[in-house]
């Protein structure tokens, strides 16, 4: 049977991992390859690298990071952030990434999903959705530009459209839960997971191992769960989360 995946997410700026990663035992906590190896050894099933470089040079550096990670590690990884064209996808995937994640660019130009899926296959194309509940429309609204810009799309129909266009996976971040450490947004995750035929990665809100169990069981129905700070700040480890999940009867590697 297929296992549930635990995915640490690393923010990369100009080739360095940023946003408060606390690993004293590493020689260099900002080195993406060293951190990737650390998480691999802990039992991470996959990794996500989010490129937050603003400059052209920073983006070029990201391709080198991707090459280096792919040379060193034998687990799959996704690269997101700043991927706007088919050419960006080509560069990233040819450098050795297994998947690319599209967010704002997919909303602005949905055809990009189809272009990528036709060229590389759906399994390479992840559509990332930033979701925030909106009482006015009584459902979740899609936000873009790192959560700064509201769109007129609702999350469920956008997720369905993305899959129809060729998305092979949905990376779903709850803006309401993100950073709160009170658990994943179970209602959101379940609603999207039931609406689409492809795997859904839940993101935003992980605070402890129990939260992962919640999002994998009936309440959340997620196929994978992503977290950043609780792993980076060593509040828990991938290994600890997996041990807990095993006790609770969740199938993990």
């Amino acid at each position, binding site marked *: *049977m297929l*296992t549930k995946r635990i995915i640490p997410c690393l923010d990369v700026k100009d080739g360095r991992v940023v946003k408060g990663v606390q690993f004293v035992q590493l020689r260099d906590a900002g080195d993406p390859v060293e951190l990737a190896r650390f998480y691999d050894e802990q039992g991470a099933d996959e990794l996500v690298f989010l490129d937050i470089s603003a400059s052209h040079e920073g983006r070029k550096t990201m391709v080198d990071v991707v090459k280096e990670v792919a040379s060193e590690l034998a687990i799959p990884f996704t690269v997101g952030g700043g991927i706007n064209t088919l050419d960006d996808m080509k560069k990233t995937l040819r450098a050795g990434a297994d998947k690319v994640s599209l967010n704002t660019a997919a909303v602005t130009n949905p055809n990009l999903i189809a272009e990528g899926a036709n060229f590389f296959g759906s399994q390479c194309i992840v559509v990332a959705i930033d979701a925030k509940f909106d009482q006015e429309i009584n459902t979740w609204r899609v936000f873009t530009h790192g959560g700064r810009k509201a769109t007129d799309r609702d999350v469920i129909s956008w997720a369905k459209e993305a899959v129809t266009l060729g998305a*092979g996976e949905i990376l779903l971040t709850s803006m309401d839960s993100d950073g709160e450490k009170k658990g994943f947004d179970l209602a959101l995750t379940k609603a999207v997971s039931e609406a689409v035929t492809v795997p859904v990665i839940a993101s935003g809100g992980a605070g402890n191992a129990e939260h992962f169990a919640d999002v994998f069981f009936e309440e959340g129905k997620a196929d994978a769960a992503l977290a950043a700070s609780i792993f980076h700040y060593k509040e828990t480890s991938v290994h600890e989360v997996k041990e807990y999940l095993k006790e609770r009867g969740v199938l993990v590697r």
Partner: protein
Amino acid sequence: MLGIIDYGMGNLFSVSKALERLDVPYFISDDKEELMEADALILPGVGAFKDAMSCLNDTGLSAMICSYVESGRPLLGICLGMQLLFEESEEHGLTKGLSLLPGRVVRFSGKTANGEAYKVPHMGWNLLSFQKNGLLTENLQDDYAYFVHSYYAQTEEDVIIAKSIYDKEVPAVVGKDNVYGMQFHPEKSSKLGMQLLNNFTQLIKKG
């Protein structure tokens, strides 16, 4: 030296990096004569069956692969590369494969026998259970491998070296004589994947 077949559909980078980590000398080529000289061949592949077969047929690589196999040297197909070894696939209309292994490649229905929906593609880590012993599976124990695919092979029991369960029984490692296939990505499957690739490269020495 081991040859990796470059026909425009492969995830060549990760496969070649995995071989480098194993210290196995290799070359990447689309040249039939050069590939024909290899001690073993890897047929990688990501994408659609029909496009891949068109590429292989148009370039004459299909015929080369078949005569290579007749020479008795080992061939390994990975992911789509494994599916291409079978007789046919129903992806985007029925397409003829290389017919080096018996069987047909079909799509996961997305519905269990009880009518419950399940996710397609089959994406993530799944347990391999080894069905028989051989050179490829030497010193290996059941462990997890990383899969990403929407189609799977329906084949004869004696071809299946390892299987996984995803609604149906999914042939994960297949093999017949000197033709081998892995449905998952060994180059992305951590320790077990590297061991399997290593065992494959050992076939070169053992003949």
